[in-house]
Every structure is written in structure tokens, then in C-alpha cells.
């Protein structure tokens, strides 16, 4: 088994009620698993939320993470998302100094970022994309003096019909 730590994206169906987030994050904390990002929101079924967790782990630890998560009563289904077979997206909001607004707008156009707020001193931009695109954009914006930045963390869905099959299985189990 490989000891090399690699990035993994987990998509987890959980019961949509109070305390679920602390159960999941608490498990990661007490078992010394790492969380790079975590995002959560309701699904088409209001009883179910879907969590996307990005973690860095070696192969054995990654198996452990999945097996320990599966033991939680509130966890209904777990799947791993691979960048080849899933759509992975992140959203970022960046507030930058507007001194050189022409250059900023030029860059925004290349990246297809939107300007969502404008004031005399500051511009706020939004961008959606894969993690490397977001990283590259942030990197470029640094030259204009970033005044504020927030990113949502990764979310994702499997491409094609895979999710439908999962959904059917998941509904069967409930």
C-alpha cells in the first residue's frame, strides 16, 4: 500500500439535522485526519444534506476515513469523486484595490470572472472553477493588493449517469 499522501475528494450523504457537521468534523479531529476543505448543503431531498470533504491522506488512512465515516449513524452514503469522472467546482470572492481597474478587468475577462461590486477604491470579483484555476486567479490578483478573499471549498458531482445509480441505491437504503 502506498504511503504517499494524496488529495482525495469525498462526497457524503448525511441526515440533514442539527449536530451532523460536528459529528463529521469531530471524527476527523479526534482521529487526526486532515481536512483541506469542507462544504455542505441541502440536496433535492430536504432530509438529506450532501457534504464534500477534501482531505490529504495515504491510502491506508483514506480507507480508515471512509470506514470510520460509514460507522456514523447519520452517514447514509459515501463516494469518492475523481477529477476524471466528476465535475469539481469551487467558488471564490476576491476584493482587490481598484487603482489599476483596467488590468483587473482584463484578467477577469480571461478567467471569465465576474465583477460583482464596484466602489471608488475596491473591486469585488467572483469566479467559479476547478481548484487549479482558482489558485491561478488568486495568484494573479495578488499583484493588485487583495483586500479580502473567501473561497467555498470544493463541491462536486459525478459526471453522467453514475449519480443516478447512486441515488437509487441510496433511496433504497432509506
Amino acid at each position, binding site marked *: *500500500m502506498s504511503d504517499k499522501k494524496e488529495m482525495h475528494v469525498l462526497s457524503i450523504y448525511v441526515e440533514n439535522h*442539527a*449536530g451532523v457537521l*460536528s*459529528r463529521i468534523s*469531530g471524527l476527523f479531529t*479526534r482521529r487526526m485526519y486532515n481536512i483541506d476543505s469542507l462544504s455542505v448543503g441541502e440536496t433535492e431531498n430536504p432530509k438529506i444534506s450532501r457534504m464534500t470533504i477534501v482531505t490529504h491522506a495515504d491510502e*491506508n488512512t483514506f*480507507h*480508515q476515513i471512509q*470506514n*470510520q465515516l*460509514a*460507522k*456514523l*449513524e*447519520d452517514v447514509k452514503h459515501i463516494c469518492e469523486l475523481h477529477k476524471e469522472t466528476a465535475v469539481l467546482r469551487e467558488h471564490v470572492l476576491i476584493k482587490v484595490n481598484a487603482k489599476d481597474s483596467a488590468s483587473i478587468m482584463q484578467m477577469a475577462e480571461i478567467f471569465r470572472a465576474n465583477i460583482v461590486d464596484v466602489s471608488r477604491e475596491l473591486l469585488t470579483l467572483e469566479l467559479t472553477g476547478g481548484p487549479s484555476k482558482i489558485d491561478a486567479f488568486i495568484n494573479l490578483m495578488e499583484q493588485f493588493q487583495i483586500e479580502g478573499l473567501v473561497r467555498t471549498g470544493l463541491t462536486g458531482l459525478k459526471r453522467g449517469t453514475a449519480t443516478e445509480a447512486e441515488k437509487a441505491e441510496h433511496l433504497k437504503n432509506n
Partner: protein
Amino acid sequence: MQKNGADIIMECLLEQGVDTVFGYPGGTILNVYDAFYKYSHKIKHILTAHEQGAAHAADGYARSTGRVGVCFATSGPGATNLVTGIATAYMDSIPMIAVTCNVATNWLGRDTFQEIDIVGVTMPITKHNFLIKKAEDIAPIFRKAFKIAVSGRPGPVLIDITKDATAALAEYEKHIPEKIDNYKIESESSDFDKAVELIHNAERPLIYAGGGVIASGASDALHKFQKTIDSPLTLSLMALGAFPASDEAFTGMIGMHGTKVTSLAVKNCDLIIAVGARFSDRVICDPNTFARNAKVIHIDVDRAEINKNINTDAHIIGDAKAVLDELNKRLSKVNHDEWMAQIAEWKKEYPVQHKGREVFSPKVIIEEIKNAVGDDAYLVTDVGQHQIWSAQYYGVENPRHFVSSGGLGTMGFGLGAAIGVQAAHPENRVVNITGDGCFHMNLQELSTAAKEELPVIDVIMNNNVLGMVRQWQRLFYDERFSNTTLNKKTDYDKVAEGLGANGYTVRNVDELRAAVKSALDSKDKPSVINCIIHQDNTVLPMVPGGQSIEEPILEIEIPSDDNQSGKEDK
């Protein structure tokens, strides 16, 4: 039918066949205690001296019966006092329901008097927990909680209920609980093929069984398995009793204080078959050298245990009994005469013996007690040297007859647990072996045993020190005995008598024999037998933390009493 929340709780307990609970009342749980008053002819509530005692009693009840133990406590300090007991049950996978009440829903989250977020506190030490704010949720959640507690790998579940929910009315309809079928195998047939092949190719197999064998009631299947593959067998502390200690294939306990025979078997075996065991640090000591010459088959109900501490060559996920039955079907009889002869030779060479100069040794005490109470008796222990001596010398013959806090190592566990065991088995004798350190941690529960007329026999191995810690201080801290010499002024006989128990202090075998006889004659009163032993009895063999199980320490040199160089603190 409309009932208030508290009555619904009682009905749910009755649905599950619960007839005995342990607990302590308080402000927010008043409605529930009013229901206990009403249902007192159907549900016996044993009032302990402290909520921790109630949690340990529920745990002892569960360990000795295999049924779910139930305890109750009020909000705030009542609930937090359960925490050690819940954690103890969690670490040893014991099915338990802890019910706490909380402040009224409109007062939640406002730092109300005796308010604690006990669901938050117990999240890491329960299999699952619930906060109920509506009376109509009580019945479905209780049913679910009992199911969770016993399904798959068992564990404790906490249910916190707001005070208003216990008063509110809701519809209640009696349900017959669905039968929990734990007799299941998750693994595929090919996993069995792999295991069977490894077993057939093994020349020197070793079976290592853990608490899962007891939890699944797999003792008979284990015995058959052992006979079929003609293998020596070792048990973890949690599994003592799962296989008769008197069987010649038994190599003794495994781990930090396992026998030399087991450590030789682990070192020399070419296949280790773990059944319902989790390769804890106290068993494997050093993961890099543990069973280094052996392939590993791991059988467990919990997939998350596979490859957690030890990498396996094959594994089967499922209930221990179900898996062993299936293996027994697939395996044909093999013989390992040479290997078994080698084990027998080692057993002769390294018998279980106590090293020390004293005549009145822990081994003598434990053997005396065993002879007096017989194999039907239940042996409970606290935590420390006396616990390991009990594990090594008692020779447990039957499953569920040895009750000890393994994973959490909870000092003060014994007496509370013994009360639970005795409440579950009024016809059997229950002995709690404790130390003078542990005794002081929960001695108030003697008053509970006395009031309930439970004839628990509390045997104190009184060496005037915290012996296990002292042993480590001797070995690894240059004999600086920091805060381990007790020098208490306690008059044990008076404490016993003061709390309603018989008290005996004994210094030799004759006195012990007389005290045990008198305690056994006492059928409705607990007894405390205070055995004065030497302070430097040691627990051996011993594998120092993190070192290889292959080379346990077999002897520790103790200077004579006149020649002690140890530095007692003032």
C-alpha cells in the same frame, strides 16, 4: 393512547424487556422519576450513590448478561458524572443506554441552571446520541437507540430529553421490537477461500480471540474452530472466559502482561488468526515486531478495525459466530502435533507463577477465592496490578464471567459494575477484586450494595501503594515514587461497617479463608475483605511501552525492605 413523555419512556423500556435500571434523580428528570414511582412494580430502579456508579452498574449488567444496560441521570452534573462510565462502555463495545434529561426547550442554549450540552460532550464516546425535544419523538428514538446499541459492534447510546418533552402528551402505541439479527457476514465467499487457504498452508497457527467472541456468543464455535485447526489459542483481557483457561491449547493472555508462552507463540507462529479482536496497543505493544514471522487473518464485525493497527493478509467482515460457523463448515481437520507439543513444552517451562518472597501473595489470594466461590461466580475487577493478577491467576472458564474495564482502564469501575452484575444474577456470587487506590475512588457504592442487599464481595489487594504506577516508577523513573505511596489512615473495617457492609482485614491465608467463608454465608449484605499484601509485588511478565512482545521482562529485582533505595515523596 395518549401518554406523557415520561410514561412513554417507561413503556419503551418495557417493550425492550428492561426490568432493572440504575440512576439518580434531579430537577430536570423529575417527571421521569414520577413515572418510575408509577411503574415501580414493573421496573426496578436501583438508586446509586453517584451517577458514575449507575453508569458502571448498567455496564456490568450488560457485560454479564449480553443485554442492554440502562442508566438514568439528571441534566448538568448528573449527566457529566455519567461520562466516565459511558466512555468505559464505549471503549469495550458494551451495549448501554444512558438517559439524561435537560432543561426545558425554551431554556436550551442559555446557560440555564444545570444545563449541559451532554449530546456535544458525549459525541466522541457514544455509538450515537440523540436530543429529544418533542414527546412524540420519544418512542421512535428509544426503539432506534436500543437497536443501535446492540447491532453490529455494540456500544453505548445516550438519549437526552428536554424536561418539557417528558411532560407533554403524545400518542403511544405498543410495539414489539424487531428482532435484531447480528448473525451476518459481509464478506464475499472469495475472502473465505483466501482465509481457508492460509489456514491450510499454516504449520504453526495461533488463534488470538478478543471481546467480539463474547459479544457474539461465539465461544462454542471458537472451540470447534480451535479443535479443527489444532492450534494454540490466546485471549485478550476482554475475551477472558471465551475459551476455558484450563484447556491445554490455551497459552494464557496476550499482550503487555501476557504469558511468556503466548509471546513465544506470537514470535514463532506462521499464521495469526484474530477473531473479534482489535490489535490494541496493549496487545501488540510494537506494531513493527508483532507476529513478524506470521501472516495475519483478521475476522471482525467492524470494517474500520481492518488494517488499523496491523496490516492483514486476509480479512473477513462479519459477526464472529457467523464467520466461525462458516469457516468450520469449510475447513477439514488438520493436525499440528509438533507445534502443539512445542506449546506444551513452553507451558511446562514457563508456568504461570508469581514472583516474590511473600507467602501471602496475590496469586494465593486469588486462588483461594476461586476455590471458595467456584466457576459459577462472576469475577469483576478494578484497574491496576490486582486486575492483571486476576486476569493471570483466576483462570476464567466461562464467557461473561470476567468483567473488567479494558480499553479505558477505569479505576473505580469495579464496585459499580459488581452491583450491576449482582443485580442481574441474584443467585450467583459476585466478587470484585480491587486495590486500595481503586477502592477509594467509588467506595460510596458500598452503601448502594448494602441498601439493595446485594452480597457483593469486595476484595482489596491492599499494598499501601498505587502498585502499577509504582512498578513503572521503579523501572523507568529511578525509583522516585511520586504520589504513589498512599499511607491512608482509612480503617477499612470501619468504613465497611459504616456503610452497611461486613468488614474483614486479613494478613494470611487462614484469616482470608475464614473471611471468605463468612462473606459467603452473608447472603444479603456486601462484604469487604481487606487483604494486606506487600507493597512490592509486581506484575510480570511485562512488556515496557512500545517494545517488542517477544522479550517481556520476566523478573524485576526488588531490594529487601531494609534495603529500599526508593525515594518516597513527603
